[in-house]
């Protein structure tokens, strides 16, 4: 069975064998942070991680959202969760967002924060972790704590936390 379609190679483009036009959209976006995340970002400046609690089922959401996915009721109570937690999963990245190789591998993880409901993890970087301990599984289930940017340098961003690092004695 012969199927339709005409493949070409990148070199065909470079050497002018494939007619084409180019376009470079220059769209920029400004996301209003919204009711739940505005408070979350403001509190990061104070070194606090905030969640929102559903008073119907008791779930504490991190990142916070204004309604409960299960009950579909407002989550009306702010709760400060800890800046410590457990590594749910971790990986070693050798590539950047554009697929280019990174100079130095980066360890990233999903961290379940203490004080949030079970399974409410957040994405962040891990520091002071040997990539080998990711590959051999040792980092899984380990306790970690946030390393914050100095207060005067915080901007109200998730990057106000520089990374999470393993806690001593764990």
């Amino acid at each position: 069975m012969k199927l339709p379609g005409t493949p070409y190679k990148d070199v065909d483009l470079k050497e002018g064998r494939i007619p084409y036009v180019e376009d470079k959209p220059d769209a920029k976006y400004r996301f209003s942070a919204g009711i739940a995340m505005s408070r979350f970002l403001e509190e990061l400046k104070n070194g606090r991680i905030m969640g929102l609690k559903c008073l119907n089922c008791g779930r504490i959401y991190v990142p916070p959202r204004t309604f409960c996915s299960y009950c579909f009721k407002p989550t009306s109570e702010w709760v400060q969760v800890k800046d410590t937690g457990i590594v749910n999963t971790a990986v070693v990245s050798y590539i950047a967002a554009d697929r280019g190789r990174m100079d130095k591998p980066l360890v990233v993880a999903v961290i379940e924060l203490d004080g949030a409901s079970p399974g409410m993890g957040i994405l962040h970087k891990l520091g002071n972790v040997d990539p080998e301990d990711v590959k051999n599984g040792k980092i899984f289930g380990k306790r970690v704590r946030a390393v914050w940017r100095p207060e005067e340098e915080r901007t109200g961003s998730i990057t106000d936390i520089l990374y999470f690092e393993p806690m001593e004695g764990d």
Partner: protein
Amino acid sequence: MARMNINFKNRVAVIGAGLTLFRRRMYETTRELAWEAAKQALDNAGLTLRDIDAVVLGTAPDAFDGIHMQGEHMTDAAGGYMKPYTRVFVGGGTGVFAAIAGWWHVASGLFDRVLVVAEEKMSTVRPHPQYVFHHIFDPIMDKPLGVNLIWIFALEMARYMYKYNIKKEDIALVSVKNKRNALDHPAAQVAAKITVEDVLNSEVLVWPVQRLDISPVSDGAAAIVLTNEEYAKQYTDTPVWIEGVGWSLDTTYWTNRDLAFPKYLYYAGKMAYKMAGIDNPRKEIDVAEVYDPFDYKELHHMEGLQLARKGEAPILTREGVTERDGDLPINPSGGLLGVGNPIAAAGLMKVAEIFWQLRKEAGKRQVAKDPVTGLAQAWGDLMQIGTVVIMRV
């Protein structure tokens, strides 16, 4: 879970399917590719566009094609000129979801004959589609950390490996199997005879994900023709019935999910099984095309679909159960890992493969057992939707 309403008016049959080649770069535009696949499917079914009452198009993020509202751009190319025409989009789940949407068009009694087309062109975006994927993430929580798409897969794969003590060697077997199966597929882009060592020695992108754990970037299109029972019997002696459909979405907050078990798919599967009257999927499904953009995802999805117990899919794979001559052949087409991954088209290619398998028209790819019931599945949005169709002869 609320009780599903599974009442519908018409039984729905697949009566034809068509594909283009799947390749890294195609000269044809998105419109030209869609037309080629649609034409193939109509020819295969023995219909012309005049016979078609409505058209469903599936295509994934506009950012790949660089044309915003790609659905409208494709209208006539998909056969939708001056007809009731609908684009559906659930990311990677789109290809199978397009078949589901086509199904409800006919099952509802609103239309008798529907053309379903899925198309993707990923080669347009420069320098690499990876960068577009960066923009599917939450701009507040995830993007400032420099997230790339492979992170989320790697984090899920690592959690799955950790929870069930699964070795990379066993996961790599999926890539080996699917790339080998694809050697017999006429559309295949990355069919190859490779070994587990080749996978383990390939470039590490985000450990544990390596180059050969992943499906490629692709261009391509696929199409199927659906009709009600009356027309199906008029057009063909060998209709393949869609007996169950299901879909379900998990939260967009992916770091809040159970990363070791795809719950979204468990619910989607339950819905489809109930509709098809299937109590024991492992025994009653004869052949399945499960979504395999990554090798671990085939295993993950087998478990979500209850085709294997939790943590058992790698064992079934190692024992050869999922080979074409096994008891439960998985991805006899070669899947996304072997045939390629033009996103929406790849999902519909899976529906087409089950159509051919159940008709015993899969040629060298035909599974050894005598298949009566097959399943096709895809996965997508922010890794949170399961889309399932169950087909029977």
